[in-house]
């Protein structure tokens, strides 16, 4: 039995895994203590649960539990990491290097720092969405203090060469931050090997609750940050505010399940993604956005040429997908990520991001393939552009009249 709309938007958010919800619920009932309450058992129980969860988050990424700081989500983690490091190390330099295809939480944060007097470079990506290491090296400056590169892109799922960038940054003594919100449970992360100093995590992209995230802050060599949220001195002074025990417990359980199940789960998801991609093979003028090899199996971002993006979304409302990043989809601007790959506005507008997850079934994939075939066929029948292409007219040579 299919449940509509079929959810293929796992990169926007994931459902809370029922096993995670089950672990959270006791903390929403009888166990309600404030983990900072030191004078009674309500507080102690909460504190222990918080520390157990910290261990689970650390275990998924090969970190020491003492390197994990709780936040309200990856957006806050990104803000804390980038502003906190830039402000702490501003005596050493004022240049920040990031990439054009980063999440808004990184880009807007860097822009804010520019207004405060820092300088920033937004690196281009190649057509496949990946950064070029030589270009990256060339963009570094003697006064570069912070580099921020995401591990997995939220729109196109490509995996950036984090290990290589880490080596370069460590060599030059530059603080390296990685937004891994879209990576946990999808790619193996070992912070013992990776030379990453700061890494942002989100619970709700990995079957945990919304409103919960974490920041990894390396101890050896030690990275220093300026706190962005001040108060009671929670989280070693780096992030004040009462800890939301139920949410922390949820994130811990979600990351524990990810550690245990990601191997088998990713194989199954890859099979579903390949099936989906296969399903579009016989369609004309269909383009995959982003490299297919250096990419998480969960993501398929496709542009259907000669179809208008908004009408496409309306036409396929039985499947819940994104036509851009969830956080920016309220605007009608074409996706800045796809523009950075060199896609023109039309192709960027007519893109669909399918993201597959833990609860996606073969039947759902088959339904999506079938629906897309029917609806794209219909929309193209209505499209004058498609008609011209069918008649062999090269659209690039057409002189359009201004209205």
């Amino acid at each position, binding site marked *: 039995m299919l449940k509509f*709309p079929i*959810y293929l*938007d796992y990169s*926007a*958010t*994931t*459902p*809370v895994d*029922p096993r995670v*919800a089950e672990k*959270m*619920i006791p903390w*929403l009932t*009888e166990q*309600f*203590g*404030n983990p*900072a*309450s*030191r*004078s*009674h*058992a*309500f*507080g102690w129980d909460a504190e222990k649960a918080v520390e157990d969860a910290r261990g689970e988050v650390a275990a998924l990424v090969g970190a020491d539990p003492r390197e994990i700081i709780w936040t*309200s*989500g*990856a*957006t*806050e983690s*990104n*803000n804390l990491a980038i502003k906190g490091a830039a402000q702490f190390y501003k005596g050493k330099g004022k240049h920040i290097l990031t990439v054009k295809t980063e999440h*808004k*939480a990184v*880009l*807007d944060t860097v*822009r804010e720092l520019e207004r405060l007097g820092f300088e920033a470079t937004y690196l281009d990506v190649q057509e496949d969405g990946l950064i070029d290491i030589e270009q990256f090296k060339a963009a570094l400056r003697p006064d570069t203090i912070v580099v921020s590169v995401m591990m997995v892109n939220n729109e196109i799922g490509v995996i950036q060469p984090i290990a290589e960038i880490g080596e370069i940054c460590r060599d030059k003594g530059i603080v390296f931050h990685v937004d891994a919100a879209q990576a946990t449970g999808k790619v193996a992360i070992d912070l013992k090997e990776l030379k990453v100093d700061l890494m942002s995590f989100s619970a*709700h992209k990995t079957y945990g*609750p*919304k*409103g*919960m995230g974490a920041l990894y802050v390396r101890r050896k060599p030690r990275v220093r940050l300026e706190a*962005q*949220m*001040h*108060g*009671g*001195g929670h989280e070693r002074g780096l992030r*004040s*505010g*009462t*800890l*939301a025990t*139920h949410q922390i417990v949820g994130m811990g359980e979600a990351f524990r399940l990810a550690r245990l199940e990601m191997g088998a789960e990713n194989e199954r998801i890859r099979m579903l993604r390949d099936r989906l991609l296969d399903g579009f093979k016989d369609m004309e003028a269909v383009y995959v956005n982003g490299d297919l090899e250096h990419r998480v199996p969960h993501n398929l971002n496709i542009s259907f040429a000669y179809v208008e993006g908004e009408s496409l*979304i309306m036409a396929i409302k039985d499947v*819940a997908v994104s036509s851009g990043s*969830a*956080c920016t*989809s*309220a605007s009608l601007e074409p996706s800045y990520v796809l523009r950075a790959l060199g896609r023109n506005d039309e192709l960027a507008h007519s893109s669909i991001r399918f993201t597959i997850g833990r609860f996606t079934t073969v039947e759902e994939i088959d339904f999506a393939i079938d629906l897309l075939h029917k609806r794209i066929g219909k929309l193209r029948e209505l499209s004058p552009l498609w008609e011209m292409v069918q008649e062999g007219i090269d659209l690039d040579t057409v002189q359009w009249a201004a209205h």
Partner: protein
Amino acid sequence: MFAPAYLDWNATSPLAPEVREAMLPWLGERFGNASSRHEYGRQARAAIDEARERVAAAVGAHPTEVVFTSGGSEANNLFIKGAAACMKPGLVAISAIEHPCVREPAKQLRRAGWDVVELAVDTAGRIDRNHWQAVLERRPKLLSVMFANNESGVLQPIAELASEAREARVWLHTDAVQALGKIEVDFRALGVHAMTLSSHKIGGPIGAGALVLDKRVELAPLIAGGGQERGLRSGTENVAAIVGFGVACQLAAARAEDEHHRLSALRDRLEILLAETGTRIFSREAERLPNTSFFAVDGIDGETLVGKLDRAGFACASGSACSSANPEPSHTLTAMGVDETLARNAVRVSLGPTTTADDIERFAETFARQVKELKELAAVAA
């Protein structure tokens, strides 16, 4: 099973069953990202809008004045730092008894060139109006005075202060985290420019709060990226917690008046019993929250006493929960001129909707016994 009586409601409160019921679907099948444009996203957006209306209605504000945050600490940080970021450095004045999440952000402003002054309080913990006047004459740019103190429960005359602040053309912010759900909180009637609320002190979940903000106040966000909450607070909304917060506000507003009478009767009864054992009760002469009692016994360390009470089945606090990790004496008490030794003996009992008359009688009895034992021990040791 041994279930201790919970007398620490100012630290956090258990989730109300109605709140839990309202939240569960949002941890289950209704899991969408409120920014998504499909059905899952629209459901989440509608739920957030409804919660915003509930919060606004409970505190006499307009829904568009409510900015959701991850909690009270973030809301306080957002106002202090966010308002300061839009101004040239000047003078910021906060009361001497603010929660650390107002005090610490204010101190941070010093590094940006701001002067910080702490408004003195009298021996009962009320704002010293002469000092307040003197500070207003120095033309501060930002003021923050908490509505109800988390430790003593003392209420400040916020409406009066706000009207004077308006006359002096200064933004006044009030941290109403402890007031909400215990006394009437009406944004419009108070006349403040900004007000902080927290969910988990009123039977809602930890992880949600709000800054209620007069739209004339210009504010820079603390957390950038994504542009949620009118650009003032980015990040995927915690739908379940926001829904829970909305329902908790509705419940708190509905029960406020009855609870007020019931709790103040219980608290007054408790203080009569405590006074019989020679306990010094702080701020008894001031207007206070109905649920809070803050007291100390000469010669008996607060931590020790609270530990003994916990083992005897009563959960209470020896200072504010956030700072109970550090051994500093209560900031609230030292500001009132209480000497450090007595301040270290302080115990806070805070009552809530499930507290019964029986809890109070049993607590007072146990308290008297523990105090007697500790005094005898002290006598032997001396």
